């Protein structure tokens, strides 16, 4: 029995490349060059489009338009956040748009026709979403029908269900003040806005510093303080600027009716985004979603209940669609057969993909939906201000989506070549 023995070897060095800020920056550049571009295209796109629209139509940067951007993009962003979970498994949910319409209709029927309190109606809408998601998930995971087909059927069926609920095209008004506050006239008082911003920035910094201390205490490579400072600073500047602008007076007649503050829907979506990010990146459940999306067989062999994960992402997707529906009903003050229809679903999928989430599964973050949703809102809003026809608008949006998908495909090819992904 002869076995080759080798001399003592140095232990693995964990993350030695991350020691300093320049090294960190070099590492990042190398990753981008290698094809791991993440949300870079969405961020660059946002900057380019904002500057472009701002030059063409200075009113784009006005306080009132800035607030509009958020309330306009809210429904698509909410649906996109849920879609991230579905896309992470390499599945698709084409029914999310009309599912959100159905949930909005449930809300409207209960609150307007049945005179139920707002919380009963909202809860019923969310439960409807969860039930829809469970149904889709069971059909995909247990029966084995491809999600594309199941949700295509859902796309048609929910469109029908929506028509039935709103009695063939009558539109149901939603005038409940609490529901209207969600995405129509609800504002966070300016002072509260500032306080929440400080809480968010301090919390973000605290989490990062605590993680760093814990790693350093166990002798693991820790991020340099300068990187953390940069990250916290960026959040403070960007979010601070947004709060500042949103706290400016946007009313033409401020004495009669002052309109200042962060729209309530921004706060709601912000809290949801943080919660979902936590789930995806800090819990075992989130880790298992990535695992199933990356290699389903490996996940199964690791003892992960793959079916349960697959069902659960559709539940999250459809529940987020329901939240999108509530937002849409609030913003329009009504629900009609087109709530959640037309471009809503396509914009939501587009938002996720433009943000950097892969349609092939295994890669994506909640932040992608937020960035992509913002980009979609900017396009929609900017094109509206330019006064172009719907035809041009769709052509342009289609072009942007294609560019985003193209960048994704090219970066993936590059990443495959360098072995990054």
């Amino acid at each position, binding site marked *: 029995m002869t076995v080759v023995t080798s001399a003592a070897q140095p232990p*693995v060095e964990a993350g030695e490349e991350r020691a300093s800020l320049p090294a960190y920056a070099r590492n990042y550049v190398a990753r981008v060059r290698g094809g791991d571009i993440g949300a870079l295209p969405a961020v660059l796109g946002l900057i380019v489009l904002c500057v472009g629209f701002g030059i063409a139509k200075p009113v784009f940067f006005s306080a009132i338009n800035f607030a509009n951007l958020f309330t306009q993009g809210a429904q698509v962003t909410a649906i996109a956040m849920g879609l991230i979970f579905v896309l992470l498994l390499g599945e698709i949910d084409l029914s999310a748009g009309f599912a959100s319409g159905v949930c909005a209709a449930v809300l409207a029927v209960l609150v307007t026709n049945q005179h139920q309190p707002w919380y009963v109606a909202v809860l019923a809408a969310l439960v409807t979403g969860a039930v829809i998601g469970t149904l889709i998930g069971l059909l995909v995971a247990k029966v084995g029908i491809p999600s594309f087909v199941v949700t295509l059927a859902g796309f048609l069926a929910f469109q029908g269900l929506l028509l039935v609920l709103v009695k063939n095209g009558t539109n149901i008004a939603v005038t409940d003040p609490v529901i209207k506050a969600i995405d129509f006239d609800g504002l966070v008082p300016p002072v509260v806005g500032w306080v929440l911003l400080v809480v968010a920035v301090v919390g973000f910094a605290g989490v990062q510093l605590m993680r760093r201390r814990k*790693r350093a205490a166990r002798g693991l490579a820790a991020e340099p303080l300068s990187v953390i400072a940069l990250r916290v600073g960026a959040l403070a500047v960007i979010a601070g600027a947004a709060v500042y602008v949103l706290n400016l007076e946007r009313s033409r007649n401020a004495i009669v009716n002052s309109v200042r503050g962060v729209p309530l829907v921004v706060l709601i979506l912000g809290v949801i985004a943080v919660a979902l990010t936590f789930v995806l990146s800090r*819990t075992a459940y989130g880790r298992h979603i990535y695992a199933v999306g990356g290699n389903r067989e490996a996940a199964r062999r690791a003892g992960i209940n793959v079916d349960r994960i697959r069902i659960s992402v559709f539940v999250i997707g459809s529940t987020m669609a329901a939240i999108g529906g509530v937002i849409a009903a609030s913003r329009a003050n009504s629900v009609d057969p087109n709530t959640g229809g037309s471009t809503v679903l396509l914009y939501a999928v587009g938002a996720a993909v433009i943000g950097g989430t892969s349609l092939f599964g295994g890669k994506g973050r909640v932040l992608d939906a937020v960035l992509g949703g913002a980009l979609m809102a900017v396009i929609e809003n900017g094109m509206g201000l330019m006064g172009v026809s719907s035809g041009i608008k769709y052509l342009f949006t289609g072009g942007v989506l294609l560019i985003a998908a193209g960048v994704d495909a090219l970066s993936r090819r590059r990443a495959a070549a360098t072995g990054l992904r």
Partner: protein
Amino acid sequence: MTATPLLEVRGINKSFGPVQVLRDVDFAIYPGEVTALVGDNGAGKSTLVKCIGGIHPIDSGEYHFEGTPVSVHSPRDASGLGVEIVYQDLALCDNLDIVQNMFLGRERRNGLVLDEVTMEQLATETLAGLSVRTVKSVRQLVASLSGGQRQTVAIAKAVLWNSKVVILDEPTAALGVAQTAQVLELVRRLADTGHAVVLISHNMNDVFAVSDRIAALYLGRMAAQVKASDVTYAQIVELITAGRSGDLGLTPAVADITNGAQS
């Protein structure tokens, strides 16, 4: 037989639809020993290992662990017993990093939150304990690793869990000379630290270099399980290709039946 087997299966049958892949297979694994499992392509080695690992349910047969009968229906059952398998198709998630892969399905937690620090530390220690020097950072994505590095990660994943049985399905098939030597050394070290190790390989030099026992599968039947010191290279090759060698292996009648069933 001096030692008692740590894990033993008896009379295992396994079919995929009409195709019977395993017939009445007996197989025993001993602590502190490397048992080589050999056989031609398609003999059923990977299938036997997957049955032991709870990936495939067995049609019939007994499964004994430390002398007591147990039932293994899922990968979790197997890992609960301390049985870890490094599969031929490594079963790593390319989109996760080394630490995440090593703890997949068994993440350390602080309440609800993943305990990344402890996991990273344990992963680093395990790799260091295996004298792995080629991995730059344990936070590298598995997609960026070479074949040998991936194999190393898969083995490290298997020994991370205080496992008692480690089964390696062709761990050296895709490796160069130096990396093969490293993996074989690793295999031997696992046995020397008390693990019961099963090594599947087509390379007879590797088999004779590290194993204490050799089990030969022939068309889904266990032809023989013998001490490595009792047989010659040529005898094993005969067992693999014909199912019998002299008075070793299947009786001529059984070998013929087995042959007939296949063709």
